């Protein structure tokens, strides 16, 4: 008597492909924001043929279908609340909002401005595996810059610490 992993998994596969496409695109991303301060040694823009992106290529490159590419998700690491019963800025019913959060600085292509984004986890319920999983790291920093670190459970300071999903909330303009 055990789980039968099936169609649901198909959907998970879909999520993986999205994640792959994101990886492939990120490797070729032009938008290298100097303000964030990272100095890298190159910024070549050709989409590379990677050993690991064969499925990305096989799956096509329909960017419009990938919710992770929405501009305000530029430093998100998590399952989207908008596909878990919540929205871009609201946690699903019956969950709680993380008391603490990490922040990102994302460029809004509509007005060309940089915005400060608060990434809050929603807490206290299981994650929803059919929701899109996004792993974007613009401006992300290790744990010694905790407020910019996304590899941590931001439900940690809540009474209910289980990770449920993540929202991306515009806090205001970044300077």
């Amino acid at each position, binding site marked *: *008597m*055990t*789980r*039968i*992993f*099936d*169609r*649901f*998994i*198909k*959907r998970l596969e879909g999520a993986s492909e999205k994640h792959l496409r994101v990886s492939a695109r990120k490797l070729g991303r032009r938008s290298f924001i100097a303000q*964030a*301060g990272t100095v890298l040694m190159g910024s070549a823009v050709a989409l590379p043929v990677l050993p690991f992106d064969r499925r990305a290529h096989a799956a096509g490159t329909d960017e419009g279908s990938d919710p992770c590419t929405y501009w305000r998700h530029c430093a998100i690491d998590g399952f989207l609340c908008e*596909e*878990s*019963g*919540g*929205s871009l*800025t*609201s*946690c*699903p*019913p*019956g*969950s*709680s*909002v*993380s*008391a*603490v*959060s*990490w*922040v990102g*600085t994302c460029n809004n292509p509509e007005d060309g401005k940089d*915005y*400060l984004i*608060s990434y*809050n986890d*929603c807490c206290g*319920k*299981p994650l*929803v595996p*059919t*929701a899109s999983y996004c792993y974007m790291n613009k*401006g992300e920093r290790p744990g010694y*810059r*905790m*407020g*910019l670190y996304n590899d941590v459970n931001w439900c940690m*300071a*809540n*009474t209910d610490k*289980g990770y449920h999903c993540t929202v991306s*909330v*515009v*806090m*205001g*303009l*970044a*300077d």
Partner: protein
Amino acid sequence: MKLSPVLAALLLCAAAPGAFAQDTSIKPEKLTIRPHISDGPHLFVLDFGMNGSSPIYVYDTKDFKLEGSIGTGSFGQMLMSPDKKTLYTASDYLSRYTYGTVEAVIHEWDAYTLEKKREFTISPKMAQTISQTSVLNLTSDGDFLLVQNATPATSINVVDLKAGKDLVEIPTPGCWGDYPTLKGNAFTTICGDGKIVKYSFTADGKVADPAKSAQIFDPDKDPIFTHGARAGKDMIYVSYSGHLYAVDGAGDAPVVTKDFAFGEAGWAPSGNALLAYDPAAKLLFVQMHSNPSDGSHKNPAEEIWAVNLETEKVVGRSKANGETGIFLSGGDTPELFGIDYMGGAHRYEIANDGTGKLTLKNSSEHVAIFPTIAATDF
């Protein structure tokens, strides 16, 4: 612990390289919690978990859009209250996830806000079994939960909902299930000797002597499924071969009021929650599969048959979609929902011409990894 998230974010921003420049023309967005699911009809689907949580997903029935979820423990069971306002769940929490102390927990969830209204622990003898309708039920007046135990010795735990604790454990050796009678504090259980036995108890936990039916079925030759469907005064059961029994539990001991074979050669019932009775159409829906053999009694449904209990005839046969369970909504014109063995769900309209013909209205291929049981809030 509940700092304002905005404040908290700002505090942490002190560490960020880009300072926060407040532009009066830009209004910060408000971070909220969706207060409740939509006002439309919903399907609640339990995703059975043996290790870890058994989540319950809440879907809009029109498009199977996910509106929210609930987390329970391992070996989750669920039951929607008759007024559709409370979802009861029963599940186990192991202190070390796959070992350690077991806590069996009853949760009462608000079916609209998906918030927890209450939880309390009950006897850890609770059966660690696949989600099924026979193991978690409410007594007629809703005062007591009836919980199947298995250690593997079987008993029924009567849980006092007002007090939020166990009232009495009733030994039911060799029997399974706890379907409540229509009135009073009593339930019936199906036993390995082919009899159905009625147990009554008082609100202070006194248990009367069990009242046994005559032998109803032959558990060796043609066992009945423990999933039953209430149809008016009777509970309906079917056997592996397709024999139907209507059992009235109102009297001293359960009695068969009707029994007949509804199948035909080459077809047999199968599944988990394989029956659903539509009181509007007065039809019993049964999951059926073809070419039955020993061991095929859990096969996914190939057809869903509609049986008229008055005429004892199969009045309609509809194509199924691999269902392991079917569930009827309430209302004047109930809808039938199926969950399939591939993790999908299906909504059917029931013809109102007495044939019980089903028309598939919409489906989702992925409502859960291992959906075992479902319920509607309408």
